[in-house]
């Protein structure tokens, strides 16, 4: 079964990505985590996402299409990346979520592909 780990980052995390003083350590955290996932042989797909302010969000309001700058919702923590893993159950998926170098991870099972 495949599960998606939605990895949420704080403003501070996003800032660390480009702060010369913290960048190396920030990136190393991800390197270690993804290495452990790869060695476990469970990675289906993974991607980091650029910061939320680079996002464009499309909304339909009463038939009218609107495009706005920034993320869909202004929350303290924003989606920073996703990781799709192939593990037997949600217990195992949560175990991996606990190892992620972020404070918040949402875990959901993927719907199997349509035949």
């Amino acid at each position: 079964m495949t599960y998606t780990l939605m990895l949420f980052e704080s403003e501070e995390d996003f800032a660390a990505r480009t702060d010369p003083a913290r960048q190396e350590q920030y990136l190393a955290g991800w390197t270690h985590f993804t290495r452990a996932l790869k060695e476990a042989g469970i990675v289906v797909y993974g991607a980091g996402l650029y910061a939320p302010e680079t996002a464009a969000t499309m909304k339909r309001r009463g038939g009218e299409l609107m495009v706005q700058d920034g993320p869909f919702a202004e929350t303290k923590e924003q989606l920073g990346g996703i990781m799709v893993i192939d593990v037997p159950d949600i217990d195992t998926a949560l175990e991996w979520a606990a190892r992620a170098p972020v404070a918040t991870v949402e875990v959901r099972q993927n719907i199997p592909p349509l035949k």
Partner: protein
Amino acid sequence: MAMEINQVIEETARDAYGRLLSYLAVNWRDLQAVEDAIGDAFLSALETWPKAGIPDKPEAWLITAARRRLIDRARRTRISDSALPTLHAMSEDTQLLTTSDAAFPDERLRMMFLCTHPAIDPMMRTPLMLQTVLGIDAARIASAFIVKPSTMGQRLTRAKAKIRVERLTFEMPDAEEIPARLDSVLEAIYAAYGSGWDEAASVDSSRRQLAGEAIYLGKLLLHHGPSEPEVYGLSALMLHCEARRGARYDDEGNYMPLSDQDCSRWDQRLIMEAEHYLHTASQAGRIGRFQLMAAIQSVHAQRLWTGRTEWVAIAQLYEGLVRICPTIGAFIGRVAAVAEAYGVDQGIHLLEAIPFEEVVNYQPYWALAGHLYKRLNRVEVARSAYSRAIGLSTDAAVRQFLDRQASELMT
């Protein structure tokens, strides 16, 4: 006043929940029904006590209220006549409790044996015990075990249904059954404590938020259970580990491994208590895994007085431990001790003999591998081992510690 009463109710709940539940469940057998009834009883206490005042015997009051709920429920669901004698007997018991100074029967030991009954899924024994004996809610148990709360709730409900449907016995096991059954109880309590081969594994465990509860369960067993050396061994082990709680982080919040800990921050009172239990255990002359693990911690504790760690003694104790209890944690602990006592090469030799598939996702293995390869100056292997250890850690302070260790590697 309302505050005070809430406090009394809360305190009563903490002290008495497991005793109330066990007492009612032993007679009533339907754990879920008893839990609901006790929940209702506490609710009505919150409503009634502030108006009518706190009763002389809060526990007896709660039992009476809970029993009334059970009887109502029995009437509604037309429970068979066979339940009636039980209800009447309970009713008489409760009368006695409310009118005399008779001691409240403590059935928590029976409950502990029930929770670890061979028919109960081993994974669910600890959660079930935490909920029934200590009244810890499913959500908190779920977090400590890193399980989805609704899943944990369903599993607990299923386990309770199994007890009811299969009519699992609340009787104490027979004398010849005791050793095996007791072992399951000890195992379940130890699982709640969640300690590992070294300090880092304990800090890294999400179970550490339940350490106090595990110690409480250990003491309960000590006071009410069979006087077996392993019972003392388990409490000695947990108290030795607990004694170092305050030394695991420095003032800046950095994680401190055992060998770097300032022993003046260890809790001497807990160490003495642990030593006392270990001594009592040893009187029986029957060694077991928990006594051995406690003895290992006891040797570490001696540094408080001698200023040094007797690694040879620790390595010998681990030899004994892997023989009677060959868990992966014990093997890793043995490698660490052998490396300290007889040299890193010998340690590495043992480390590389551990079957690889058992340690793919086992953080302590990789942390130790990084440490040992670093000492042999095998920089690349060490770096990669540290990286995997960090990737498998769940605690930020442990990650930082391992990261510092890795950064000391020569490039």
